[in-house]
């Protein structure tokens, strides 16, 4: 009996358990998935929770509901991967594997920045990338009377790179709807040179920021949070004052990767960007945020990766060469407030441009344009996530590789 071991039962790991259970013969393969937490969070919902647009029950469910029957589901902390021995060490237990899938994701580490998780933490300094942070921020926003709101990114890469922008847009609508927009000054502070890393999308997003009266501070590399004087300082000496700081702390891979000596200097696993095989061990594959791929850390990327990884695992088992197919495809809704959203679709080589999706020339979704239909798409996505995506059901009309049809490229 051969063994496939999946580390992490988040979006990527759960999808792979579902994919491989359907493909691998039960009499030959035993599939095991390991995670230390019993709750599966719908992480895109953490953006909407602070504004009371989602309730806590919308963003969490029991993980076991999504693990297919026949897969061995272990709820334990993973101590170490011993890649040279094909073993994973848990508490009181050591498991061996023929193939290992690492899907341990990325986490936020506020302690990486001086003063961030100090006296002000969850008083006037918040993150919304964790369930606890998003909930604490919701409680704060319910009674906050206004002042300087600073939305901040510590360093790249981060999970869901558009989420902080969406937060700023939604904050603008939230305070407008409360009739207190004039009491809130919103500033968006980023280490990048503009709102986004891709020029076409930055143009559109810059326009939206300006339209909504959100100030931008770019090229800001944070040195410390001074919670006494309520300001953040850049290494260059620039300062930005806040009354309420909503920050995206440093994102790193799980400490397990560091303990196991398998990561780069941000604990992400060096991975072949086209095949998803780890660079150091041929029987270790990496999916989702845990890899060092130069793609967005987002659920949609993990979804597209899963289709290609499934095929490559089957090829690896059959001793065939792996397909170099993954193109970095990402597809993200960007909430822009007031019931509208943008949609962007891009990959390693093509930046987001205007067009229609998923049907060329028809849509119904418009790329890089603010529409109500895109917002409906984002809301519908929660249903798709729980009912199709993590169960590994193919989403009709949306392919793993990005389509260039129906898009307005310059060249």
């Amino acid at each position, binding site marked *: 009996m051969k063994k496939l071991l999946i580390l992490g039962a988040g979006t990527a790991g759960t999808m792979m358990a579902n994919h491989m259970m359907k493909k691998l013969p039960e009499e030959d393969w035993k599939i095991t998935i390991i995670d230390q937490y019993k709750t599966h969070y719908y992480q895109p919902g953490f953006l909407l929770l602070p504004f009371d647009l989602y309730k806590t029950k919308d963003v969490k469910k029991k993980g076991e509901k999504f693990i297919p029957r026949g897969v061995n589901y272990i709820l334990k902390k993973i101590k170490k991967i011993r890649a040279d021995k094909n073993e994973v060490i848990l508490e009181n237990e050591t498991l061996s594997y023929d193939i290992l899938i690492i899907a341990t994701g990325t986490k936020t580490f506020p302690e990486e920045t001086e003063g961030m998780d100090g006296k002000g933490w969850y008083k006037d300094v918040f993150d919304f990338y964790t369930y606890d942070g998003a909930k604490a921020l919701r409680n704060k926003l319910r009674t906050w009377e206004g002042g300087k709101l600073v939305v901040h990114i510590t*360093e*790249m*890469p981060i999970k869901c*790179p558009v989420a902080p922008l969406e937060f700023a847009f939604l904050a603008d609508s939230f305070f407008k709807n409360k009739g207190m927009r004039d009491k809130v000054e919103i500033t968006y502070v980023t*280490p*990048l*040179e503009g709102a*986004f*890393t*891709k020029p076409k999308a930055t143009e559109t997003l810059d326009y939206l920021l300006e339209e909504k009266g959100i100030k931008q501070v770019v*090229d800001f*590399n944070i*040195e410390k949070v001074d919670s006494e004087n309520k300001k953040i300082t850049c*290494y*260059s*000496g620039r300062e930005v004052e806040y009354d309420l700081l909503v920050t995206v702390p*440093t994102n790193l891979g799980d400490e397990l990767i560091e303990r196991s000596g398998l990561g780069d*200097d*941000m604990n992400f696993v060096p991975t072949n960007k086209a095949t998803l095989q780890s660079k150091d061990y041929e029987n270790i594959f990496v999916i989702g945020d845990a890899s060092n791929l*130069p*793609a*967005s850390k987002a659920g949609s990327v993990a979804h597209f990766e899963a289709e290609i990884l499934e095929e490559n695992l089957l090829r690896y088992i059959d001793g065939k060469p792996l397909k170099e197919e993954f193109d970095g495809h990402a597809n993200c809704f960007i909430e822009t407030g007031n019931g509208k959203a943008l949609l962007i679709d891009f990959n390693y080589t093509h930046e987001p441009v205007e067009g229609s999706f998923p049907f060329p020339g028809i849509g119904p979704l418009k790329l890089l344009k603010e529409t109500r239909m895109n917002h409906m798409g984002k809301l519908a996505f929660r249903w798709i996530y729980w009912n199709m995506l993590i169960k590994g059901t193919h989403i009709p009309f949306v392919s793993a590789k990005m389509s260039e049809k129906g898009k307005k490229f310059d060249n």
Partner: protein
Amino acid sequence: MESVDLNEEGYLTNFSQWNKEIGNAIANDNEITMTDRHWEVVEYLQGKHVKEEALSIRGIKKSGVINIKEFYALFPGGPLKVSTKIAGIPKPKSCI
């Protein structure tokens, strides 16, 4: 001085065309007077480039070559952007 190929942002497109004289010229354009300390940092960046290792502020922090405060003092403004231009290597891409 021989001619070099630059992209629209003024970065060398071919590192093999780089030499110290060119580095100095780019530094002057950016109002930086190169010192031994500047060159030490430039050499470190070039070493990373040759090994195809990505550059980031975090990487610099962990490098032991220079701390970030001094990095900003040597290459004011956006130190990674300016120093890589002088070093003749591509502008670091921010992963998204």
